[in-house]
């Protein structure tokens, strides 16, 4: 059983938001959708959440009952407590009282929100609120979990807790699609879809994305005189299409951040 989109196109008004997007996920798989602001990540997850109609292409989804969705704004009701938020989702899914109580206890424990169960969602920290949003999306044990930037604005500890939760969810058989602007985070996913201006920049498992980039990425001590350069911390990077070495520098096994930056530059010839 696989879910996803094929040849997806979305036009909003006169603007093409997505064009020719393919993404396929299966049970147990985590897929990351990455890209900068305005790349089309939210549009894609809104299609998967049945919030936007595709203009073209095919979308395969489980029944609504089996899709867990978290909007970028957490999706929790600020004037309900943590338990009340989760209980509302359970009631909307018509879960029995006993099943709901058991599931809520499981999720509160998994997210570390037990001690905050009686606090209003508006009184939670950003990280706790995002965890609540993920827990709400997980209440009905969905076959497909769709999360829009669940880790944005979340501290590193909460991010790793969220990741543990997503890994466990996938291990239990759900397909997970999440968006993120943190490129390093996407390395944890089995499949990556990188979007750029509504189109696919690169797509596939992290290793195949590494293989797909032609040329070579170089670490350079000084600012290179090339349009294909970018800065990482105190160092500079340069990408050469034919693999030829720059004036100064050493070859580098690029991580995903370098790969996707190089791929973006390679396509657009942009200066950073």
């Amino acid at each position, binding site marked *: 059983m696989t879910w996803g989109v094929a040849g997806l196109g979305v036009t909003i008004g006169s603007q093409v938001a997505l064009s020719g997007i393919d993404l396929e996920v299966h049970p147990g798989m985590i897929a990351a959708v990455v890209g900068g602001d305005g790349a089309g990540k939210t549009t894609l997850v809104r299609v998967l959440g049945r919030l936007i109609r595709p203009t073209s292409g*095919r979308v395969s989804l489980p029944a*609504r009952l089996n899709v867990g969705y978290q909007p970028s*704004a957490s999706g*929790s009701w600020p004037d309900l407590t943590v338990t009340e938020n989760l209980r509302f989702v359970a009631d909307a899914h018509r879960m029995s009282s006993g099943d709901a109580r058991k599931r809520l206890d499981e999720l509160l424990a998994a997210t570390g929100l037990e001690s905050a169960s009686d606090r209003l969602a508006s009184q939670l920290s950003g990280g706790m609120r995002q965890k609540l949003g993920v827990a709400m999306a997980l209440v009905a044990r969905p076959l497909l979990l769709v999360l829009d930037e669940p880790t944005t604005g979340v501290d590193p500890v909460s991010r790793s807790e969220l990741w543990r939760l997503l890994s466990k969810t996938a291990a239990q058989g759900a397909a997970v699609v999440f968006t993120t602007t943190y490129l390093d985070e996407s390395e944890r996913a089995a499949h990556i879809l990188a979007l750029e201006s509504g189109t696919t920049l690169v797509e596939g498992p992290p290793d195949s994305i590494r293989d797909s980039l032609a040329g070579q990425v170089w670490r350079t001590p000084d600012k290179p005189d090339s349009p294909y350069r970018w800065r990482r911390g105190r160092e500079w990077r340069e990408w050469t299409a034919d693999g030829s070495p720059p004036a100064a520098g050493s070859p580098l096994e690029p991580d995903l951040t370098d790969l996707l930056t190089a791929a973006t530059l390679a396509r657009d010839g942009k200066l950073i």
Partner: protein
Amino acid sequence: MWAMIVKEFRQVRRDHRTLAMMIVMPVVLLVVFGYAASFDVSGIDTAVYGAGAEDVATILPETFEVEIVDSAGDVESAMELLRKAEVVLAIVAEESQVAAFVDGSQLFAARAASQALATAAQAMPSLEIEILFNPGLETSAVLVPGLGGLILLFVGTIITSLGVVKERQAGTLEQLAVMPLRPSDVFIGKIAPYFLVASLDLVIVLVVGTALFDVPFNGSVWILALGSLMFLFVTLGLGVLVSSVSENQGQAIQLALMTLLPQVLLSGLIFPLESMAAGVRWLGYVLPLTYFNLVAQGVMLRDAAFSDLLFPLALLAVLGVFIFGLAVLRFRRDLGSADDAGSKLEAGT
């Protein structure tokens, strides 16, 4: 400071609703107040019945606009007409006695009629004047039924619109859209609490009003309940419509007030409709509160029967179906489900 002023002007220029409130509203209010704000009643709608109807109609001063002269009519005919609020004054002229019945529920017209009748009584020594429905010509008796409508408008339109906009602002409307809830579940679930609170508010206003201000309740509770129900659908529908075109609670309040203010001023609640210039009076006749006011006053003060109030009830029903229907459609669109996306969306099971 200059930078701050320029920045503020730029923001105001882009906030079209605030701009409208600041520039258009004063002009509208000036015009509306100028033409509508009048308590003076120039003509008193009058019916004359009884054997001496022709004679009495002839000697009545011009202030009395005689609509009906029927020598076959009697006290019963007069009462029926007054209960329907079709005239302010009904005179029954029998051989030895002339009785004038004034509809006290039409306060300003009734006051004008009483004064004019006192003058006319000099030419008709046998004239006996009786003020019906609101014998003391109390302002509270006329205001309390209409205030019930105002409460329904306040809760139904302002509070409901705020409640729905709050969902949009918090991003939870999107959450509702993806949950396994039908749009009708969300819609009914969303407005049901406001429906109940508004109903409870109406009961409290009417009970306190009748107990504290001695406002009579002469008619059928059920007719008033029916009218209130239909009016509530209108106000809740207005609330949802306001929310559907508002991005935040501030905008919702602005717009809700824009729908509330004309109803308060032009529904006959404060200024009598018959005193307004024809140019703005027609506005009063398209506002829902006007018809709720007619029903509430008719039931509470005049003991009007269902058949007497058929017209305002029917209009409330039409407005209710139209506005509430429109609100349901807008709400469904706002929920934005793509479930009906046809063959391009393959939904499994």
